[in-house]
């Protein structure tokens, strides 16, 4: 008869054997072939891509919703949900015809009224939409497939604006959903995109699940950025939120997930060394690092002081602080992202160096006022910038205080218009996708809207006039000239300092192929080989 000691010993051995058996390897069992497991760079917390510019919400947006127009790799607008988009001779009437056979995930057909409600809501939040709304006289819907936009004055960039790929795209929602207040998040996640959101499996901060929308009708052209056919090759898309970079890399190497949006730069060599993983580039236009001044408070209300900082900035220091190699970034002497159409690197020359910066600071009359830098230590892309800037400013001769905090506190602190001794701020850092800041309308960084504008409240009527003139330019030549004038103005006034343009990598299993590049990860085209 077995005694207690023997029983415990045998049970322990049996349990261990069961646990370690390769047949129970999570990587292999229980996952159908047509599931794609993706690890986003950030957790998805806001499901409404209209009320936020968060990149992860826009990626989510492209799963669930579609847009009237998309863009190709050259950022040229192309019809997507639209069959066509035509302007009248005087430019004051745009007629957009919807493709046949478009449905929402609830089975209802997409109608022009849905487009009107969606565009009205979007144009109350988005910077391009706000510019469009200023000239819209009326939306008309002569039939369910036709949308007519009547304008007070011509708006030549209509299709660019309707097709913008980022921050924020003009996603089309059902009318009842789009009638939600633009400052409140929608509660029904219903679109006409290639995937439908599976609400009952959503675990905030942990998992997001989408299923292929069988009634989605992709275009016939090949996919190119957000234009062309959005052909989905997976029945199920799961976003697995893994906040630890090493764990995410391990999970990819172990085959537990298929695709990491943005591995840490330090881990790229490890991933490249794995025979089952390949590393690619996300967005060829990249991101820009930005140092934003509070132009409404001393000392940075003085353009000469801002200029002094620019003269001393060495972008290689900032890019190196992010752990990037030389082939992963570009030094960009502009306040617009280099590499974007029409942007001239070095249009106003190059920085003169530390000594020139010191000289300019002295000439500016700077009296040693305290400079407060808000530094988010929980952001891998931003935390390194704070100490680099603090050190740089001290070397120029500023009185600097670097305040470390989390991003949530930064977003609150930067709304303060008070002086620094009452909780205000002088500098914060951020990053932007190049495509989100690539022209005088979009580039929130340099717009001179003053108190009504972006944090930092840079006020420059001339910049605003240039933006308006550019938007209404009669032809491409004049538009480019105005764009260059705007670029020079941005360097003369220096509302920000650009800290470098850099690319980010993705990593995926070698069994995946066909992924489409863009300013966000797109889940059409990609397939398992």
């Amino acid at each position, binding site marked *: 008869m077995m005694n207690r000691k023997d029983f415990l010993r045998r049970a322990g051995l049996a349990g261990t054997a069961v646990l370690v058996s390769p047949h129970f390897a*999570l990587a292999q069992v229980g996952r159908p072939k047509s599931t794609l497991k993706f690890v986003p760079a950030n957790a998805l917390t806001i499901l409404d891509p209209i009320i936020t510019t968060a990149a992860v919400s826009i990626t989510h947006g492209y799963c669930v919703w579609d847009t009237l127009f998309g863009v190709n790799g050259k950022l040229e607008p192309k019809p997507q949900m639209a069959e066509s988009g035509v302007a009248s001779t005087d430019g004051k009437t745009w007629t957009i015809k919807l493709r046949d056979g478009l449905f929402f995930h609830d089975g209802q057909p997409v109608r022009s009224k849905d487009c009107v409600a969606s565009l009205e809501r979007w144009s109350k939040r988005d910077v391009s939409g706000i510019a469009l709304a200023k000239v819209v006289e009326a939306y008309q819907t002569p039939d369910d497939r036709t949308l007519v936009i009547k304008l007070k004055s011509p708006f030549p960039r209509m299709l660019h604006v309707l097709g913008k790929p980022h921050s924020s795209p003009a996603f089309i929602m059902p009318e009842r959903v789009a009638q939600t207040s633009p400052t409140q998040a929608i509660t029904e996640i219903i679109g006409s995109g290639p995937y439908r959101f599976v609400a009952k499996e959503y675990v905030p901060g942990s998992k997001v699940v989408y299923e292929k929308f069988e009634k989605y009708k992709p275009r016939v052209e090949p996919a190119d950025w957000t234009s062309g056919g959005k052909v989905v090759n997976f029945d199920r898309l799961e976003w697995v939120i893994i906040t630890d970079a090493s764990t995410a890399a391990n*999970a990819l190497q172990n085959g537990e997930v298929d695709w990491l949006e943005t591995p840490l730069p330090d881990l790229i060599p490890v991933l490249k060394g794995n025979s089952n993983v390949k590393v690619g580039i996300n967005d060829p236009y990249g991101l820009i690092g930005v140092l934003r001044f509070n132009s409404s408070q001393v000392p940075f209300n003085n353009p000469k002081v801002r200029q002094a900082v620019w003269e001393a900035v060495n972008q290689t220091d900032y890019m190196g602080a992010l752990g990037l190699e030389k082939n992963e970034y570009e030094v960009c002497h502009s306040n617009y992202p280099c590499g974007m159409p029409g942007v001239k690197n070095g249009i106003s020359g190059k920085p003169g160096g530390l000594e020139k910066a010191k000289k300019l600071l002295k000439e500016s009359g700077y009296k040693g006022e305290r400079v407060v830098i808000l530094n988010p230590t929980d952001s891998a892309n931003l935390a390194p910038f704070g100490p680099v800037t603090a050190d740089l400013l001290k070397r120029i001769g500023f009185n600097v205080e670097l305040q470390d905090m989390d991003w949530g506190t930064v977003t609150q602190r930067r709304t303060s218009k008070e002086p620094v001794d009452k909780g205000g701020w002088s500098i914060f850092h951020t990053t932007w996708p190049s495509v989100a800041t690539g022209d005088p309308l979009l580039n929130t960084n340099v717009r001179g809207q003053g108190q009504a504008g972006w944090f930092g409240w840079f006020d420059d009527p001339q910049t605003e006039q240039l933006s308006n003139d550019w938007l209404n330019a009669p032809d491409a030549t004049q538009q480019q000239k105005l764009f260059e004038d705007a670029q020079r103005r941005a360097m003369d006034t220096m509302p920000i300092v650009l800290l470098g343009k850099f690319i980010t990598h993705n990593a995926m299993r070698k069994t995946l192929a066909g992924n489409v590049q863009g300013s966000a990860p797109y889940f059409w085209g990609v397939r398992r080989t």
Partner: protein
Amino acid sequence: MLNYIVKRIAATIPVVIVVGLFIFGLLFVAPGDPATILAGEQATAQDLAQIRQELGLDRPFLVQFFEWSGQVAQGNLGRSIFSKQPVTVLIAQRLEPTLLLMALTMVISVLVGVPLGVIAAFKHGGRLDTFVMSASVLGFSVPVFVVGYILAYVFALQLGWFPAQGYTPIAEGFWRAVRSLTLPAIALSGVYSALIARTGRAAMLDILSQDYIRTARAKGVSQWTVLFVHALRACGVPLLTVIGMGVALLIGGAVVTETVFSIPGLGRLTVDAILQRDYPVIQGVVIFFSFLYVLVNLVIDLLYTFVDPRIRY
């Protein structure tokens, strides 16, 4: 006994009220504002003001507090500002992995810590005692995330025996669930094993010098029986206290372990809510924890009566 239980449960009410007031006040004065996170990069001052109004954040502190207290009294912990899901649902989603991780960690810690403590006490002053005590110092000192990374590298990445991350719900198989939490539980159990081993050793050293132990030995009782039947039972109270403390701490969420192994537990829910300033979730989770802590303490106190018959309520 029943009276005692009822009194202890009733005592949770003032505890919850005090905790609620404290956490509400703390969030009110702390920097950060969910409206600014919700509003996005290009929000105007008017957008922010409107969002704050819609969320009720512009109302006076006492108005907000009493409204929230009234909801909590009815069992309604509110909704997440961001996901719009009820806080009770969010907690329920995260409870299973947290409870299973806690149980697994304590099982491993007890199975490792208790025998080590007993052996160390028995071999007091010898090489085995020194080894156990040194190992327990390592258990306290080495950060959990370091242990976690090493375990993941060896047992997940190299050997492929366990997953590197994630949690498999019990509904998909109990043993699969256990397997998905084995490495995190081992990583976490280092600290608790060390604590239990040292507490057990200290208690055992005291017990082993007692007269009745000498009598048992003199009567020819085997060493195993002396240690694990007579002596260990007498150490039950201090060991239960340490185990109870460990359970209470683990319920709060092993945040670092949950982050390293990407486990969707209560710890990560709390941290994510704090970073986003998701006030209803933070408040709801803290209230839930305070209630649970009181419950765990009650259970431990009741277990004392089984371990030591002299204790009666």
